[in-house]
């Protein structure tokens, strides 16, 4: 079992002929992901990576059964790409693109509210169910099928947690990179809830960072609704206020969004936290052995 995606998942790649889309779609296919179609306006009718290319998402969905769309189009077109995937009622939309204007995301989120689509990202590494399907830019080989669900706002820090849980033999059920933008699709709470319901997931790793109050909300939710062990790390204890730390959403504004406030909320909720990302794997192993 896993959450959201598995080996059956049929994937559309929006922007499949672009340099990023092409490179990563190929990597996904090599990993075993079932990419069934691509979209690039103006290139409909052609084939790329042995996959049929369509002019629009609507054209693609009328010809091929699609469960997930993986978006690699440039930031200025990303909102339109997400909107067309929502219009075509694609179940899960994974937007990898970084640099989407936050104003565009207000519109996309409003449109999502009235739809059945789920959005992951933007500015995220994607989602992977090890040894089944990889939908995104994460390095496949560090993953190992197993029992830990990972949800994270950071890409490389997710890889760090993945690597550790692989090394100590726990492996991962599914890893979800929710991305570093201030306004985004899936958040901690939805992912925690999915992992709670997934029989294959025995423990959950949550990687947060400074900015906003998503970790605080997640802490409340964990206290009330999560029975599985959770290990949490929050990046940015040493980050100065008012400075954007790489991710658009990673900024402490006034008193809001500090790592210490997030740690406090998580500790108060009974979550096992660590101030060192190097210890995530070990701590999880200890928790599961108790």
């Amino acid at each position, binding site marked *: 079992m896993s959450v959201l995606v598995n080996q059956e998942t049929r994937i559309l790649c929006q922007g499949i002929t672009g340099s990023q889309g092409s490179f990563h779609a190929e990597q996904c296919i090599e990993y075993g992901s079932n990419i069934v179609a691509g979209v690039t306006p103006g290139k409909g009718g052609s084939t790329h990576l042995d996959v049929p290319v369509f002019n629009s998402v609507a054209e693609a969905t009328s010809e091929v059964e699609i469960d997930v769309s993986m978006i690699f189009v440039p930031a200025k077109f990303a909102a339109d790409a997400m909107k067309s995937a929502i219009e075509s009622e694609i179940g899960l939309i994974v937007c990898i693109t970084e640099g989407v204007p936050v104003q565009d995301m207000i519109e996309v989120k*409003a449109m999502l509210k009235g739809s059945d689509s789920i959005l992951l990202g933007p500015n995220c590494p994607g989602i992977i169910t090890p040894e089944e399907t990889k939908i995104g830019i994460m390095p496949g080989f560090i993953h190992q099928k197993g029992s830990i669900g990972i949800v994270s706002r950071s890409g490389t820090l997710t890889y760090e947690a993945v690597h550790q849980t692989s090394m100590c033999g726990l492996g991962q059920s599914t890893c979800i990179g929710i991305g570093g933008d201030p306004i985004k699709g899936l958040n901690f709470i939805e992912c925690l809830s999915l992992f709670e319901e997934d029989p294959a997931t025995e423990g959950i790793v949550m990687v947060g960072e400074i900015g906003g109050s998503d970790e605080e909300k997640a802490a409340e939710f964990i206290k009330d609704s999560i029975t599985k062990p959770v290990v949490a790390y929050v990046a940015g204890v*040493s980050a100065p206020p008012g400075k954007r730390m790489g991710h658009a959403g990673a900024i402490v504004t006034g008193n809001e969004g500090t790592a210490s406030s997030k740690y406090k909320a998580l500790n108060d909720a009974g979550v096992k936290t660590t101030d060192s990302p190097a210890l995530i794997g070990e701590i999880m192993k200890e928790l599961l052995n108790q």
Partner: protein
Amino acid sequence: MNLHEYQSKKLFSDHGIPVLEGNIASSPDEAKSSAEKLKGDIWVVKAQVHAGGRGKAGGVKIARSIAEVHEMASEMLGTNLITKQTDEKGLPVNQVYIESGTSIQSEYYLSLLVDRTKESWTYIASIEGGVDIEAVAEESPEKIINYTIDPLKGLELSSLKQMADRMGFTDDVHSQFVSITKKMFEIAKEKDANLIEVNPLILDDHNQLIALDAKISIESNALFRQEELLSFKDNSQENKLEVKASEHDLSYVSLDGNIACMVNGAGLAMATMDLIKLHGGEPANFLDVGGGATTDRVKMAIDIIMENPNVDAILINIFGGIVRCDVIAQGITEAVKSTAIDIPIVVRLQGTNVELGTRILEESGMKIISASDLTDAAIKVVSSVKEAVQ
């Protein structure tokens, strides 16, 4: 991207939000002639820096003669203004804005911002103006009025009118307030602003609402469609190394410590800083070389790191996913050779082609300290700095 007050007021006045007449000046003589063009016998000289709290820091002064305008402008220009929102070095005052004076009956607070929690636009208004709004929110939250736009419905005039009611406005002032708030949303939409703040919004003796101050911040990710605003960019208000890094698509933030970091990924870069601190060191910077780290980018990153004179050691932490460790190792080798770096470099590589990368570093003959994992890397770099001091 932050705009100066005079730039923000230009946008206000273009959209019909009332501001006082004013002119920008870069020299005391220009300030004098700017003042001469303005009506009245009182002028305000305002330092143009990207920080709030200017008034208390001596960056806003009232002049009662043209000679005083000249004097105040010459005192401000060419100095650094230190406010409670800047660091201890302050920000350079390269321009002053000269405005006509005005009568003030009362001061209010008004802003419109992208609200990440509500995932929409939120107005914040208060009858307490000209003060720190966060302090008001903390001490007397009942004085704060909010309205979040429902993105499905769009801006609702009735809600703006309710805000005006709650501010206690009636008659003509009521409709002035509704008009100003409506125009703020027009600017926000048209210019991709993340924040439009008027603090204070004042009511003068003629019952006119006027934006006495103005602060606009534009969404950096939307600059591709705001080309006409690019001329408003003022790099003198930013850290030099941060500007240089961003020109090379590197994400860099300057910090106070002496251990430089070069990392791939924003989260891992923050975590690396945190670990340095956890093990008793002080990070000199945040630097994300990104997913597409080529040899050239690594070299540029090391160049930028080394421009900071406080740096005593470098920690390079790469989790190779799409980025291959051998490419990073090659970049490090070339950069170190071309810039003659003589401070300790601790390198932790993990992921794709890690063996190859490690071998390249070992065979380079450089004094690179290899680390096996995150903790080991942090401990080694911190102790390398302490040894150097002893």
